[in-house]
């Protein structure tokens, strides 16, 4: 079990009101899965992803990540865990401006304990996503699809146990979107665990399992029949 969540609840509070977002969710995700968390906006899927990605904390319930109880960990322990075990891909790429592609990919490694061969490791993952020729480009000099591939390379560079992709195709044209989905599928084929957050059934059907969240509750948790396969050249060797 990579992720074990039981009766997970989340509410946001300020002086005036309490907003309950997640009302008690339970599920298990194992190594090697490709899960799409689906739901309309406001369903709580992003909050769920933030908690699963250790960016936020649950208000109640059990969460074990890689057999460790993360609910009691300190901020710095969570930071170390994110650094070593988790990769993120965001809808809006979140690349550093005025920084080269290579330096962006190196960023997680600068916070890692093992700082050996940072350059080589970053180069290798960039070549894996087909950007070996863009190493010294600045992030404002490349296309949206390339930006998202840089973000994937950045998510991969620390050899994570799991990759969270939050609407990774949301800001891309369909051709670039398909390329990204293809990379994610290939990464899953070689053993990476992938959590895809999306509001589109079309995108979700690239995964192997769909967890459908609505109004803070899981309304459906099913394997994907007739899974879509993205094919666009041979980007990932």
């Amino acid at each position, binding site marked *: 079990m990579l992720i074990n969540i039981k009766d997970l609840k989340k509410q946001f509070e300020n002086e005036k009101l309490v907003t309950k977002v997640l009302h008690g969710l339970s599920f298990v995700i194992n190594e090697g899965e490709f899960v799409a968390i689906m739901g309309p906006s406001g369903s709580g899927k992003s909050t769920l992803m*933030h908690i699963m*990605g250790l*960016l*936020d904390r649950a208000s109640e319930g059990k969460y074990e990540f890689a057999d460790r109880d993360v609910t009691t960990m300190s*901020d*710095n322990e969570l*930071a*170390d865990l*994110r*650094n*070593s075990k988790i990769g*993120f891909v*965001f809808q809006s790429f*979140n690349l*550093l*401006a*005025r*920084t080269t592609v290579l330096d962006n990919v190196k*960023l*997680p490694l*600068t*916070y*890692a304990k093992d*700082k050996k061969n940072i350059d080589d490791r970053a180069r290798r993952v960039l070549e894996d996503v087909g950007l070996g020729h863009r190493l010294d480009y600045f992030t404002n000099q490349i296309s949206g699809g390339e930006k998202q591939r840089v973000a994937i390379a*950045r998510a991969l560079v*620390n050899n994570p146990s799991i990759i969270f992709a939050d609407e990774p195709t949301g800001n891309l044209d369909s051709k670039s979107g398909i390329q990204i989905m293809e990379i994610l599928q290939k990464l899953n084929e070689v053993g990476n665990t992938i959590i895809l957050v999306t509001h589109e059934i079309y995108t979700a059907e690239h995964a192997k399992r769909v967890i459908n969240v609505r109004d803070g509750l899981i309304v459906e948790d099913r394997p994907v029949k007739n899974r879509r396969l993205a094919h666009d050249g041979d980007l990932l060797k």
Partner: protein
Amino acid sequence: MFNTITQSIHTSLAALLANKGRSFLTMLGIVIGVGAVIVIMAVGAGAQSLILAQVKSLGTNIIGVMPGGSAEEEGPPVSMMGISITTLTYDDAMALKEKKNVPNLIDVVAYTKGVGTVSWGAHSYDTNLSGCSVGFTTVEDGELDQGRFFTKEEERNLSRVIVLGFTVYNELFGESEAIGQRVKIKKHTFSVIGVMKERGTVAFQDYDDQVFIPIMTMQKLIAGVNHLGLIRAKVDHEDNINQVLMDVKLTLRERHDIIDSSGKNDDFTVRSGAQALDMITTVTNALKYFLAAMAALSLLVGGIGIMNIMLVAVTERTREIGLRKALGARTANIMNQFLLESVAVTLLGGIIGIIGGGIISFLIAAGAKFMGYDWAFILSIQSILLAVGVSSIVGIIFGLYPARKASKLEPVEALRYE
């Protein structure tokens, strides 16, 4: 560890370079502050060296006796406040000259000074009138260019003789022969018996821009007073100065019927050159540090500017902070990054300020030298260390709050920030 630091420095510098214009403007406050401290310290030290050199040129084995007591041991005598005090007389000066009273004195000169117009024919010139006793040539090392100085007899019998300072001679006579000529001061006619050698300014006293008249003549004919403004005396050896100071006090107390030996009731003040030097050093130091502190205030203002701009930077880069945290940056990583940025700005500003301030100080020193002052270019290591230290501290202190604010951001909040 080392890797982390170089990485942080790299990140900070990259952030600064990304906003060159803003970084420079932020830095400007520090540049001006540090530059001002450097210039003030350097100019202060230069001016101080000039003043001290002037005082030292008097010779440190000279003592001065001024009328009026002083409130405290090292304070200035009240006579320096512009109040005329009549307690010192010609006879006091003569008593000090006697070996039985003060054995270690070589000679004594008594002064009564004033200002007046000296005229020769159609020429006239406003100058300082220095009524003095014959001891002048010995005590003040006065040397004659032409003629002679007046004698003891001329001093005593109200002789109307005059010795001209070099400037006065030039102004009145130009190239003409002065010895034997008659000049007028306040309707009294004096015969010129000598011209002093050109000497320049010593201890802020322009020796060339004055005329010397026998003291009695000055008192009776011109000033209309019986008291002295100042007595100066030359001690045979510097080691004996303290002994002389004591002997002078005892002699004057006895003559003035002062029984109290504590000095509180003294109606005169005795100072040695060394004491004057100390006093001037204290005063000029205080002035220098006061001015430096004023300049340091601008560093404070610069620091607030840095805090302001760093707070803007933290807000602007909230998403970046969120991203860095998501990718595994610990609280300390973020803190160090922003702290290093503000320290880098202030330190760089400090270095530019030191270089700029150094250049300005050098130009001031060069200008002063060109104008004939004995002005040293002094850029002390202390003032550099002070400037660097203060600017780094300013960077740390004023960077701390924004850096802390950045490091406390919740990753998810920061990532969501638009």
